[in-house]
């Protein structure tokens, strides 16, 4: 919402400075977004041309002497055809910035003659596009005084960012009311007098959609002369960014911005028969005033005549019945429209107009008729003519909202001590009616405040006028009762997983939650319920079923700019369904190239190997461990999802059913879909699949018993079938004596012809820790026997000879 200072002062009697006004506006909730104080026009002075001679060296130039009022005539070279002795115009001295040519003037020579400034055209002052000559003012224009003041160019323009709850401030009058309430002056009365009409309005209106149109007022003015509106009106409209059209149209805009009351004018000669307010029929079209054709639906409201729609109600008039210079009889319409319907229609048609802006916020219903009177007055004043009586249809009057308001509510919600009398005063200044002197008053909202619903709204009114700055900050009380802990178990795990993965040299990425449909499909997603109806781009269409596609694509983007060895992770949501439970809490990561745990690339002491399944497995287990998973109880088995390499991937489970994660190298087909080049591996773990830890009564750690007896290690090599899992063999060794065997490490794998086809050797180092006595050779012999037997039983393996 834009307006000028002089326009505001038409409604507000004030001595406040521009700075005081803008500060007050912001602090009462009408945030000033921009102020143009027009200071750039200040240097231009009214000056008289004393002499004008032909330039000695140029046919089209003249050499002027100019009196700018200081008694020291200056020489100016000028090319304007209308430059002549005696002309009074606008002069810019050297050093002045001229906005229309975006140039700061300096003293210069033009074809050998010095020029000390410039006589300006309207275009050079950005007053209009006029550039056929320099500004030519009346003889009596006061030479030596600022041109801007004379021409009305010094009227500062203020723009406020209006919140959707304040339709009353879509007009200057409402803004003035707020400022007056805040003590910045006195609101001038509206001073609208009813205008008697000459006979009934011959144009009738029927409302077929009363739910969309709760009131319609109109009147005809005959015999108007439409032409350009007066200078002062044009200047104000231009100042706020509107283009003057003609007096009738300008008046509607002026009333729209001055009082927040949108109007429409029909050329009566172009209206066929009576008007009807009705829902449009599907597919009905109208040519709007903006020259575009709009196709209406049955949900939209239109003002139609016998020919068809003449206006999109509350949004835009139709071109066919619009007013131009030939208009002699004008129908002025002031109506009420259903805000929700206007909002929806405007959105669906993609039309943003000043009328829509106001109607969708809710205009003052009680100003429907006064607004029409106001417009009639202006039409009569500017265009002449004879008005008919006003015809009002469908308006049942406005029921003002009354709220029981305990004055103590101000203190309860804001902490501010505002006396009841002061609250009453503030509300009354804003136009509220306050009844009752006790602790609770009945407060009636004015018709221009549809946003007032209850007590809290009144508290806001009192607070904003009283001043939020007057409320002293108060510390929050300490609250022992609020929540036992800051983070939930899941949140603690999320945080731990991030830090653990970053500590493994990986970089945390945050990638889009929506990914291309093909990527989603390649990772088991793509369900209809997880597709966006209005994606922002075609390749951001599906809620991701996995973190991997986003990370893999990111890795490839990095590779494409020369950074191929990357390790990325993300801890975030994936989406199995559109319900809250369908959002999984997942940690995922990928490694590409040679981005291994110990570093990437070549080095003098050893080159990093290409990443593979075991890098991903280590990441997955590290993340699980950081999340508090019982790592020694986890099992790893085949059966990872099909986006992985079937032979180089695995599932991590806790118990037979609970899948905690998967890892592996990616399937070549998956990489093809994603357009990613390997080597690359990845993993995902499901943080929300981890069981909640048991609530322990104590934080005390279990007792530690340190054995005084020497620990020993023994090596075994077993020959087993090639498909025997090393993990199974490891478990068999450990299970041979759960007391003595404290660790089993696989330290060598061997496959060779000597072992026979389909056989392999697995060598393990067994850590043995006696607890009650030092082991004898016989003890170790016996233990070895148990280990060999256990392995044989579990895997069919035999000790390698």
């Amino acid at each position, binding site marked *: 919402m834009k307006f000028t200072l002089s326009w505001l002062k038409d409604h507000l009697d004030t001595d406040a400075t521009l700075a005081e006004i803008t500060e007050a506006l912001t602090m009462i909730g009408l945030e000033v977004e921009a102020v143009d104080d027009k200071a750039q026009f200040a240097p231009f002075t009214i000056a008289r041309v004393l002499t004008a001679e032909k330039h000695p060296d140029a046919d089209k130039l003249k050499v002027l002497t100019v009196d700018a009022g200081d008694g020291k005539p200056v020489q100016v070279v000028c090319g304007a055809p209308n430059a002549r002795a005696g002309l009074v115009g606008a002069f810019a001295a050297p050093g002045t910035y001229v906005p229309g040519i975006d140039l700061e003037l300096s003293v210069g020579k033009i074809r050998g003659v010095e020029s000390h400034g410039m006589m300006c055209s309207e275009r050079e002052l950005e007053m209009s596009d006029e550039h056929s000559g320099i500004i030519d003012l009346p003889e009596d224009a006061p030479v030596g005084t600022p041109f801007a003041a004379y021409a009305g160019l010094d009227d500062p323009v203020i723009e406020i960012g209006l919140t959707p709850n304040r339709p009353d401030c879509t007009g200057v009058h409402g803004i003035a009311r707020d400022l007056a309430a805040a003590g910045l002056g006195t609101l001038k009365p509206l001073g609208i007098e009813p205008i008697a009409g000459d006979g009934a309005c011959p144009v009738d209106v029927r409302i077929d959609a009363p739910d969309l149109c709760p009131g319609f007022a109109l009147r005809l003015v005959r015999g108007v002369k439409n032409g350009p509106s007066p200078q002062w009106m044009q200047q104000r409209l231009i100042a706020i960014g509107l283009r003057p059209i003609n007096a009738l149209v300008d008046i509607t805009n002026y009333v729209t911005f001055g009082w927040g009351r949108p109007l429409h004018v029909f050329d009566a000669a172009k209206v066929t028969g009576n008007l009807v307010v009705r829902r449009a029929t599907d597919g009905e079209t109208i040519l709007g005033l903006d020259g575009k054709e709009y196709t209406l639906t049955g949900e939209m409201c239109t003002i139609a005549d016998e020919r068809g729609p003449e206006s999109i109600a509350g949004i835009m008039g139709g071109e066919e019945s619009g007013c131009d210079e030939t208009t002699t009889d004008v129908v002025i319409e002031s109506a009420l429209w259903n805000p929700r319907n206007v909002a929806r229609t405007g959105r669906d048609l993609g039309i943003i107009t000043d009328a829509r802006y106001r109607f969708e916020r809710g205009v003052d219903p009680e100003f429907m008729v006064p607004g029409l009177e106001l417009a009639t007055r202006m039409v009569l004043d500017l265009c002449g003519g004879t008005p008919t009586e006003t015809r009002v249809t469908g308006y049942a009057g406005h029921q003002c909202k009354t709220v029981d308001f305990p004055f103590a509510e101000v203190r309860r919600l804001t902490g501010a001590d505002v006396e009841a009398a002061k609250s009453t005063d503030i509300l009354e200044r804003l136009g509220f009616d306050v009844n009752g002197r006790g602790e609770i008053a009945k407060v009636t909202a004015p018709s221009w405040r549809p946003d007032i619903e209850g007590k809290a709204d009144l*508290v806001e009114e009192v607070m904003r006028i009283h001043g939020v700055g007057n409320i002293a900050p108060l510390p929050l009380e300490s609250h022992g009762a609020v929540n036992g802990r800051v983070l939930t178990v899941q949140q603690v795990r999320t945080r731990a997983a991030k830090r653990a993965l970053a500590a493994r040299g990986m970089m945390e990425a945050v990638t889009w939650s929506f990914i291309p449909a093909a990527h989603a499909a390649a990772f088991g997603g793509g369900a209809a319920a997880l597709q966006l109806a209005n994606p922002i781009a075609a390749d951001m269409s599906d809620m991701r079923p996995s973190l991997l596609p986003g990370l893999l694509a990111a890795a490839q983007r990095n590779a494409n700019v020369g950074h191929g060895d990357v390790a990325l992770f993300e801890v975030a949501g994936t989406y199995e369904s559109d319900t809250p439970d369908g959002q999984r809490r997942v940690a995922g990561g990928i490694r590409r190239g040679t981005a291994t745990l110990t570093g990437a690339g070549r080095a003098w002491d050893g080159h990093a190997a290409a990443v593979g399944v075991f890098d991903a497995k280590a990441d997955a287990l590290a993340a699980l461990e950081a999340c508090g998973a019982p790592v020694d109880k986890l099992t790893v088995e085949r059966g990872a999802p099909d986006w992985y390499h079937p032979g180089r991937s695995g599932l991590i489970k806790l118990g037979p059913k609970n899948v905690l994660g998967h890892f592996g190298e990616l399937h070549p087909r998956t990489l093809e879909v994603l357009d990613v080049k390997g080597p690359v591996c990845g993993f995902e773990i499901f943080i929300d699949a981890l069981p909640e830890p048991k609530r322990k009564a104590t934080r005390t750690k279990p007792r530690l018993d340190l054995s005084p007896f020497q620990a020993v290690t023994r090596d075994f090599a077993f020959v087993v079938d090639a498909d025997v899992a090393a993990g199974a063999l490891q478990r068999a060794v450990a299970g041979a004596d759960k007391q003595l065997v404290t660790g089993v490490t696989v330290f060598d794998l061997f496959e060779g012809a000597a072992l026979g086809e389909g056989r392999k050797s697995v060598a393990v180092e067994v850590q043995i820790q006696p607890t009650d006595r030092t082991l004898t050779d016989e003890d170790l012999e016996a233990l070895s026997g148990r280990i060999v037997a256990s392995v044989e039983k579990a895997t069919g393996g035999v000790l390698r000879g």
Partner: protein
Amino acid sequence: MNETARPEIDQLERTLMADIASAADEDAIEQVRVAAIGKKGAVSERMKTLGKMSAEERQVMGPALNGLKVRVTDAIAARKAELRDAAIEARLATETVDITLPVRPSPAETGRIHPISQVIDEITAICADMGFAVAEGPDIETDYYNFTALNFPEDHPAREMHDTFFMAPDANGERKVLRTHTSPVQIRTMEAQEPPIRIVIPGKTYRHDSDATHTPMFHQLEGLVVDKVTTVAHLKWTIEEFCKAFFEVPDVAMRFRPSYFPFTEPSLEVDIQCDRSKPGEVRFGEGNDWMEILGCGMVHPNVLRAGGLDPDVYQGFAWGIGIDRLAMLKYGMPDLRAFFDADVRWLKHYGFRPLDMPTLFGGLSQ
């Protein structure tokens, strides 16, 4: 005899000392030791003759031989030590390497935490100290939780302030939305928990918007306090303390302006004092400029009702702030879009080391 014996001992000593001095390695010195003070060594053999000497002779020769033995023994030990040191030094000399060769950096130094995670940790540290717990909610929301329960009227222009992503409609024609703010978690929390409530809600939010300062996905932090006593005065204190703590400045001027949000009444917007005179840098707590930083207000009675609470009994405040924007303001990233590019050069530069965990006692940032 005396006259002949002494020179002979002196001669022996000179010979032995010369042998000791010239022993080139540990083997040689061992040979010298055996030859001198071994069982059949020259000194030992002479010591054996003492028994056969007269008392007078013994009185002279005893101390002389004993003195010789001590000096030879010491000299051998000294030479041995010397030779061992020399041998170690010689070995070490052969083991010397070029210590300017590079080593692999620790993965804990090369990994990075994304600024969004770091800032959430910073905020959590501050708010935990004020008694707030962290709550979360789903990204895919119903229209009810995202709008209706938060007092957004149907078709009201306030809904258009949020450019909403819609999910494909289901069989009943109902369409879920990607939450446009973290505020739905206010309702979910009030439904699940009795007041007093003091929570912050960090999370992903989505709006159909994309330019230099808007991305279709971004992160928001919501704060919510509901009890029977909390007022705008507490709100002002909380926001001021939060901003000072987050930007790590001792003092900062703030401006609370009345504003409008459907889910708060009264509503406020907050500006923070800053200095933007240096390009690419914002200093808080200095300068004459104001920057809008967050929106807040007292929880709207209709929102309390939607959460199952009586607005005449319960009251409180809520605020919402952009996490990505906070990160940009504090750490100076110029472009929001880069947050979601996963460019490792950006992550390395703007990311945080995994062991730099924000705490109040250790400082939020290093």
